[in-house]
Every structure is written in C-alpha cells, then in structure tokens.
C-alpha cells in the first residue's frame, strides 16, 4: 500500500496510548464499562456515541482529571512509566501540563476568561518552568498563529472573543508545548457551520503538519469522518463497535452503529 497524506498514518506497531479494562461508575450509574483501546502515534481516534454513552468520561480519564474504579492507562513515552491512573496528584498535573493537551467543549473549562489570550497560552509554558518573558511571548504568539488566531487580538481576553476564537485559544494552549497526545472534547459543538469548518480545517492541518496523536470525542459523525482514522462507537458505557473510519461508515455491523450512521445520512 502506498502511503499518501490522506491515508491512515499508522507507521508503528507500538501504540502510544493503551487503555485496558477501564471501568467507571457514578453511584449506580455505570458510566464506562471495561473499555480497552489503543491509539497509535500520529493516529486520530474518534469516539462517537449518544449523550451519556461515556465518551466524555473516558476522555476526562485520559486527561487524568478523573480516576476509574479499575483499569490501566499507559503512554509509550521515554520518561513516562506505569499505570498513569496510579500517579499522584502532582505527577498527574505535570504530565497533563507537558505531554497531554485538551480542548474542551466549553471554553470556560479550559481558559482563564479574563486573562489575555497570550497569557492563557503562556500559563501552560509557565507550568512547565519557562521563566523568560520574551520567550513566553514568542511561543504564545507562535502557538496562536499555528491555531490561525488573529494576532492583532493577541492580548484580548477570551471573554471578549467569539466561540470560534475561544476554541482557537484553547487549541493554541493545548499545542503550545507540542504534546504527545491531544484530546478534543466536542471541539466544534455550539459553533456555526462556517466556523466549525474553519476549526476542523485548522485541526486537520495541525495534525498533518505536526503528526499529533489525537483522540476526538463527538456526537457529530461528520466531524469524526473528517478528522479520524479509526472510530470507536460507544453506547451505555461500552464499546459496541470499532474499526477504520471508512469501514464503520460504509459497512456498520452493530445495529446501534447502523442506526447512528443512517440517522446521519
């Protein structure tokens, strides 16, 4: 098979992300049940499912914001070892600050709304120990430019920006330290169609330019089809079907996946 830019970019057999039997309950509610998954370097994994299917819970656990009842999570990186769910608070925080980037559906969760946009990006660099103002400024500007954020609004606080611009600031913040893994939780929900297309273009270009490994959660199959290489379909906390994006969209096997795909089409 000849690899082209648009072809799947799986070039190694060692997964970057490995999740094994991850289970999470909230009281009587089984949010995630024995989910296992692998994400390979440079790959984009899409997670789809209806509201309450457990996809965002799984993403939060991958960002180490939440701890599962059982299961393991490893990242194949030189200085990261063992089950990440067993890390202490500080190690988790440092790992998330330096190796994992996240874009939330709600920008209020990911941004300091009254600080400058560049300051939001700089915060991530500061956590990683950067203490030179000029370097912070340059790197924040570069990350915002890569996210196609208008640089004349470099120091505008996110609260004064549109939803699409806020998502770009989140994206710049997430990629500022060139993370090994980028998590996207419904990054285009709530945006109008034209802005949605621009954000998706930016994500696609970033992925191609930097070969970032991404996990994207969305209930919008169009978004998943545009970005993802592989898809995992979740329902009531369980993975009901997984496979290459074309395979899932053209030949869905599970009745629920068929329902999703046909509902979209």
């Amino acid at each position, binding site marked *: 098979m000849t690899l082209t830019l648009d072809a799947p970019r799986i070039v190694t057999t060692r997964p970057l992300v490995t999740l094994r039997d991850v289970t999470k309950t909230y009281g009587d509610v089984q949010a995630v049940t024995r989910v296992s998954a692998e994400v390979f370097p440079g790959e984009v994994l899409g997670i789809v499912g209806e509201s309450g299917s457990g996809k965002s819970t799984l993403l939060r656990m991958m960002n180490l914001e939440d701890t599962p009842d059982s299961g393991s999570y490893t990242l194949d990186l030189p200085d990261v070892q063992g089950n990440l769910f067993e890390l202490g*608070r*500080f190690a988790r925080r440092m790992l998330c600050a330096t190796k994992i980037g996240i874009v939330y559906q709600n920008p209020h969760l990911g941004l300091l709304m009254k600080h*400058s946009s560049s*300051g939001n990006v700089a915060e991530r660099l*500061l956590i990683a120990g950067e*203490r*030179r*103002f000029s370097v*912070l400024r340059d790197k924040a500007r570069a990350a915002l430019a890569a996210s196609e954020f208008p640089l004349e609004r470099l*120091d505008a606080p996110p609260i004064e920006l549109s939803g699409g611009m806020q998502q770009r600031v989140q994206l710049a913040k997430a990629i500022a330290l060139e993370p090994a893994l980028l998590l996207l939780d419904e990054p285009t929900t709530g945006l109008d169609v034209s802005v949605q297309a621009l954000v998706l273009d930016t994500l696609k270009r970033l992925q191609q330019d930097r070969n970032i490994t991404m996990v994207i959660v969305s209930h919008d199959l169009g978004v998943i089809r545009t970005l993802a290489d592989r898809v995992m379909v979740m329902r009531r906390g369980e993975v009901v079907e997984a496979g290459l994006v074309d395979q899932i969209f053209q030949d869905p096997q599970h009745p629920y996946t068929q329902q999703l795909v046909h509902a979209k089409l």
Partner: protein
Amino acid sequence: MSVTPQSLKTLSRAWEPMSYGFLDASAKREIRRKMIKAVAVPGCQMPYASREVPMARGWGTGGLQVSLTLIHPNMRIKVIDQGADDSVNAASIRHFLARVSGAPTTLDTLQADLIQSRHRIPEEKLNEAQILVLQVPNPEPLRPVQPNMSIARQMHADADYGRMWLQLYEQIVRSGRVMQGASYPSMVNGRHVMTPSPIPRWDVPKLNMAQHLTILSAGREKRIFAVPPYTRVEPLVFDDVPYKVEEHHDLTCSRSGAKGFFMNEIPQEDGSSAYELSDSGFGVKHIQQSTGDAVTFGKTWYENGEMAE
C-alpha cells in the same frame, strides 16, 4: 416594672490582674510552637488559633499576639506603622505592650530588641539579636490567582506557582511593567512563595539573607510564617525582566535633608510634591544630628540610594 439604671462601671467586671503579657499561658504556648514550626519551614504558613485582643481584627492583632508572646520585661520595644512611630495605631500598640509587660519602649531602631511594624522595614540594618514582627492583612499570595483556599494549599504543597508568574505576565502585557507595588510575592528559601506583608518593593530585598528573624502574623486570617536569619528571599521575576524598587534614590527629605531612602510623598498646594523620610525615627535622628545633637546611626540597607552588598 421599673428598671434601675446601671452604669458601665457596675456592669463591668472588677479589674483583676491578668497573665503576664495579656495572653494566657496556653495561647502563648500555642503561638510559640507555631512560630518554631514557621521558622523550621521558612515561608510556609502555619495556622493558629488567633485570640481576641483588645483591638479590632485588621488593626495588627496578628502582630500583637506574636509580640505579646515574645515579650519580656527586659525587651525594648519599638512599634511603627507605615514607618512612623507616632501614628495613632503605633502609639496605641506601643502603650499597650508596655502596659501589659512592663517592657521599656524606644523610637530608635538600634536600641530595639523587638520591632512590631505595619508596612515597613526600618532603614537601619537589624542584627541577629533583633526580631521584626510584621503585621499581615492577607497572608495568602495565591489568593488573587486562586480564590479556593483548599486548592491554594495544594498548590503550595506542589510548589505550583506558575500562576503567580502569569499574574506578572498579565501586568507587563497590560501596563508595560510589573504593577505590584506592595506585598510583592517572594520565594523563600527556594521553596515557598510568601507575601512579605504590604511592605513596598523597596523593602523586600532587605529580607534577603538578613541577620534578623522576621515573623509575619495575620490575626484575622490566623496564619503565622517566618523568615529566619540568613534565609534567601527572592522576589518573583522573569529572567529577562529585572526586579525594580521604587525610584526614590534621588529624592531628598524636606525635613531632615536625608537622601537615598524610601520617602512619603506630601502633595503641596501648588501641585508639586514634597518628600519626607518614611522611617520617622531615622528622620528624627537626621534632624537631631543637624541641630548638633550626638546621635548614633546604624548601617543602612541602602547606601546612596542603592541596595548595599
């Protein structure tokens, strides 16, 4: 039913002698223990059960409790408020301390064993035998960046101070310079960030590797922290944006003629400004010297307007 009018005197309890230094023994024991802990972990805030003292919260009750715990009859006390020995608050606290302890008082920094201060560190250097007690309104340097105090404590535990620098970054971006005038966040012993109480930026370098013990106490917030002698105190700065003190180097005191020290600005009717030494005891010494009195000056932290080595 008729009500017999009662005077305040009849309603009040008769005067009885209290414990030495006003506070009871258990209160002093607790504060002593917390001070020892604070000295052992420089810059780390230690909680304590701040007691009632005959003064409103926010007027120096934290400093007063530390002074009352440390005081003994042979200790000479100096109290200053914004550098002045003669402000109402400083005079009241000084009289109270003297009354409940029998300790002598002084206006001269060199003669004082214990200096309780609000918002200033004297211009003359303190020595190893002296103790500086600073009154602190808000002991938590993370409060402006993290209003949740539980999370702020976790941040201290993790030495997670990135947001303190973010605050400085925002000030430079918005105003072109660091705007933090007082309570400048400072790293103590390379580990804990503390607020050095609302002393001006001019005074913060005086804490670095100082010979004296500094105890900072917040009565309302119930926290004690300390800078032991010969401890590093470094204001948070970016590597490429140097720390700057107030530009008082060239100002001359209109009353004493002293130059190169921290001044109070006195607006004049013609719109101009006159300046007076903020450290009033130090200013009085200069005036006494100019009238021919024999006075002894100690070494000063600043010489010719520059921080001395």
